[in-house]
């Protein structure tokens, strides 16, 4: 009897996965532990591992197809064994249950669709409330009509209505900004000529919302609209930190170690969380959970979005450990190789735009965290030290906090603790 391998659940919010590429073909012999295929989830591209020895008898879901969790992907069995394709199936579980719930009875469920022409399916299915290719697009009748009128492809739009329904406002927004942000380059220099004469900024086009963009859109919209954010900022004297960093990097250059400001901030955040543990918490409707470990995540920018890998137990790790781990996680993230376990479970998040010259900003909380730290660039400016105006280096930190969990005073204590640690950075080494 052949073993049917089904689409596994590879992330907390995944309901469908895209079969990016088969690594084995029908007839290949496989053994337990072999990688059979690459599967793109809402968060990352993962490998599909084989748990059986035998022959890959049959592939049910061709590359490019979107497949619901529990739906059969392939069969592995004895050579020559005949396998029937699982019989006609109901549609993908469009309205899948809450993300935390494991789907029961992964009954032979369906290949959602197998686009024959699309080289690499991009599509919007990202969470329990959004859709897979071929699944109905939830769109209000008016929005549908408007989309037709304005030439907006609804499949590229993320719905802000209940259950992810695309409503009028979404189409209007999409019609106003039909292009995704320019990747880079070409920054036209203003020469004083007629603006119109220079043509458009870029070629007008509609780009389907990727899995990741869909997740970002949904989660951050939800965060910004349902979490009562409040914002605190504090200025930190960065001179001691920069000095220590320079010293350490110089001393450890031969060992190939290069610590970033961010590494210190991750470590300092963990320390501050230890001192003000009320910030290391999350809102769960009827209860607030206070976490024992400071699992500090950090935002990594990717070409089409961002992801937040987690440094687990940062409060127990040295700056060096954190640095090494963060580098490895950052690379994996850029290669889309992060495993779900590596980007879920954070209890606090750090977002740093300092390297891009942003002096300060107010990030959106990454749920279910209670707070996120926004890190600006170090600024050289006149400061008052010992009653004298001198040239100093400062760093502005902002904290966006969930007022359901954290009150202003607690947030302030946290930023105070963070400031004091960062201004005495040597303490981070002990």
């Amino acid at each position, binding site marked *: 009897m052949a073993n049917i391998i089904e689409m596994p659940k590879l992330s907390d919010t995944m309901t469908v996965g895209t079969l990016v590429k088969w690594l084995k073909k029908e007839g290949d012999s496989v053994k337990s532990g072999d990688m059979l295929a690459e599967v793109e989830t809402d968060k990352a591209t993962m490998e599909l591992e084989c748990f059986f020895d035998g022959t890959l008898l049959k592939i049910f879901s061709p590359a490019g197809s979107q497949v619901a969790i529990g739906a059969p992907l392939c069969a592995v069995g004895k050579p020559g064994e005949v396998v029937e394709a699982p019989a006609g199936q109901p549609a993908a579980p469009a309205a899948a249950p809450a993300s935390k719930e494991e789907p029961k009875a992964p009954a032979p469920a369906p290949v959602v669709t197998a686009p024959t022409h699309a080289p690499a399916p991009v599509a919007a299915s990202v969470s329990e409330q959004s859709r897979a290719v071929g699944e109905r697009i939830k769109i*209000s*009748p*008016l*929005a549908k*009509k408007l989309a037709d009128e304005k030439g907006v492809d609804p499949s590229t739009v993320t719905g802000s*209505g*209940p259950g992810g*329904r695309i*409503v*009028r406002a979404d189409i209007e927004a999409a019609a106003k900004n039909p292009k995704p942000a320019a990747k880079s380059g070409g920054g036209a220099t203003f020469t004083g000529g007629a603006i119109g004469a220079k043509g458009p900024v870029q070629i007008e086009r509609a780009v389907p919302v990727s899995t990741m963009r869909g997740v970002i859109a949904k989660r951050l919209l939800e965060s910004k609209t349902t979490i009562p954010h409040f914002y605190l900022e504090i200025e930190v004297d960065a001179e001691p930190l920069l000095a220590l960093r320079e010293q350490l990097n110089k001393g450890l250059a031969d060992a190939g170690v290069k610590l970033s400001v961010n590494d210190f901030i991750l470590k300092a955040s963990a320390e501050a969380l230890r001192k003000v543990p009320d910030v290391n918490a999350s809102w769960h409707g009827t209860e607030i959970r206070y976490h024992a470990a400071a699992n500090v995540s950090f935002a990594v920018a990717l070409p089409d979005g961002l992801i937040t890998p987690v440094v687990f137990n940062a409060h127990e790790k040295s700056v060096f450990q954190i640095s090494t781990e963060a580098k490895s996680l950052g690379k994996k993230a850029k290669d889309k190789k992060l495993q779900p376990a590596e980007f879920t479970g954070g209890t606090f998040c750090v977002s740093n735009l300092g390297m891009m010259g942003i002096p300060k900003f107010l990030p959106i909380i990454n749920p279910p965290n209670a707070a996120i730290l926004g890190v600006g660039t170090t600024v050289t400016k006149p400061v008052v030290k010992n009653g004298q105006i001198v040239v100093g280096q400062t760093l502005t930190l902002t904290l966006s906090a969930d007022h359901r969990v954290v009150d202003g005073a607690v947030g302030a204590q946290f930023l105070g603790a963070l400031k004091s640690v960062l201004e005495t950075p040597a303490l981070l080494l002990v």
Partner: protein
Amino acid sequence: MPVITYREAIRAALAEEIARDENVVLMGEEVAQFHGAYKVSEGLLEKFGPDRIVDTPISEAGFIGMGVGASMLGIRPVMELMFWSFYSVAFDQILNNAANVRYMSGGLINCPIVIRGPANGGTNVGATHSHTPENVLANHPGVKVIVPATAADAKGLLKSAIRDNDPCFFLENTILYGEKGEVSDDPELLIPLGVADVKRQGSDLTIVTYGRCVLHSLAAAAILEKEHDISVEVVDLRTIRPLDFDTVLASVKKTHRVLVVEEQKPFASVGSQLAYLIQREAFDELDGPIHRLATIDAPAIYSPPVEVEQLPNPQRVLKAALAALA
């Protein structure tokens, strides 16, 4: 224009029509000597005498049926039901005889009767006295159903109903009887049946409603504007059948979001019918599902503070409006 109560407006309509047409008579329990259980007909006996203002025994099947029979011969009786809730004991007369006689006679017989009285909850009179049968009545082709919300509408619509050649069922509200408004004293100022009235202009949400729920909706609309910056249009249907659906449609096309508010039990209510019509005729205009706020689905509870919650009220309308805008 004079400012009078809803009660006085109905009384004025009755007085004017009784004076105008000798075939108009007012009949019902306690309408004459007692001056009306809710004082609607106060003074009319003294003015018009016992042939025109007739006290009936408590005998709804008998006297409503009698009115139907008299109307077939050209009398224009206005029959007061002390509560519309009592329609159930005269159901056969109202909905078999009045509603059907024109049809079954192949158009030979008319039934120009008006049956009127209060149909509402909210006064802690329990389930037997709190029925709102406009959906049941309007389910019968051949009849007209009117539910006025304001004094001016009550007067103008009742006058139209009395002059109408089809059976007209006019549903008042004991809680509205004391509500005041500007009402014309022009005896020829009629409000035609089947013309809805936009009681408040708005752009974000259409509330389609009628009867006392118009007042709740207006109150909620004011809060929504002040506290949520939401602009609500309130469409008062005024008559359920004929139904001015064009006005509803125009509003839906303007706001794209709809909430129906009604003091009805939800199952197969007037709102159900509206929701069906709206989705069919304005499907591409909808930016969200049609929402509805009705009475909580149980017989009318007696307990005074809880009955307020069972019925639509401004707070419930407010919540429903926000949900409809999600």
